[in-house]
């Protein structure tokens, strides 16, 4: 299976305060989808990612899709088919934007 590689031109950072807020919401059973926990910046364009997107993005450096899913299943309370389809949709979007490629 091909491995994912980030485009090195994408500048990014995790938003520490937002990560903390999202984690405490998740711990208390709330939804954290709307909280931007990472920022990607390229050619003057900024994209924010929620906590799931951030966790996927952080792993887009040499891992396969299956490896990413296996790790996220340990972290998030979610059914595997749901996670699989969310990860696939997100990675497709990143690939279309040329933020990642498969090698």
């Amino acid at each position: 299976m091909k491995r994912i590689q980030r485009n090195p031109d994408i500048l990014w950072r995790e938003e520490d305060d937002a990560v903390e807020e999202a984690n405490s919401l998740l711990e208390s059973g709330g939804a954290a989808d709307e909280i931007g926990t990472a920022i990607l910046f390229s050619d003057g364009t900024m994209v924010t990612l929620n906590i799931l997107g951030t966790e996927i993005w952080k792993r887009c450096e040499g891992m396969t899709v299956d490896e990413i899913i296996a790790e996220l299943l340990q972290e998030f309370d979610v059914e595997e088919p749901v996670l699989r389809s969310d990860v696939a949709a997100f990675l497709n979007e990143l690939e279309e934007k040329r933020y990642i490629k498969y090698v």
Partner: protein
Amino acid sequence: MSLPELSTPIRIYWDITPVPLVHADHLKIAEYIIALKILNLDIAVTGESIPDSCFTIIKKCSEARIGITLTVSAAFFTKLLAESLSTAPPKELLLEITSIEEIFSLDYTHPAVSGFSFPINENNWKQIPDLIHFVSEKGIKRLVFPMQRLYSGEHPFHLPAQGIVSISDALSSLSPAPLLQITAHDPFVWRAIFPNTPFPNGRCQAANTMLYIDPKGVVYPCPVMPVPIGDLQITTLKEIAKGVIKRELRAKLLKLPADCIGCEMAESCKGGCRGRGEIISGSWDGIDPACK
């Protein structure tokens, strides 16, 4: 779409002079920038030579994975400078020009050069279409219309309404080269060049995605907004970026200026350039004069 409100900026604009009037500790400021996890640092050197500290800043910040855009005066770009930068090159090197004629005496094809920075003023704005035609034809990849620097009391410039129309008309037949990336920070300059594309930043990003540091180390929300919000001789960049002065200012900028309420364009222009509006009217509720 507007960009979200950030807890700290992602972009710093920093002007450096070779001989600062007040000695600003460049390396300390660079450490502050790294600590704040800034993503892009735009350094503009305003003078005839690049101070040595600048090379160290570029190296340290690049190692911290910060993208660096370095702007130098075109008149002082030399092969020697390109060589000095080769060990720690910035992501982008822009040559600042103030007229299209300056380009002809330049070695703009040097591989170190990414493109041009063209500060717009009342004497050169009519050259905008010709400049865009020229860079498109020559395959130049970057053209930046930078924000005006107003911290020394300069008068703000804006395109006249007729100028916006004439620039759009002059560019209407042009399909810019696909690789050319144009940055226009002024919402009305953007409208003149890209009349059919909404302004990418949505609303004013002063003190949100960006901060500006002047050569003395004084921090402003944006170069077009000469309202100091801190001094790096006294406090850290993090304290300024997370401080109450910045947050209160942002709250004001998120509201539409009172004088714009009821205007049918307000939904798209979001109050235009808020720095310019404030300087001219003396209030956060004043209209950007470019809108009139």
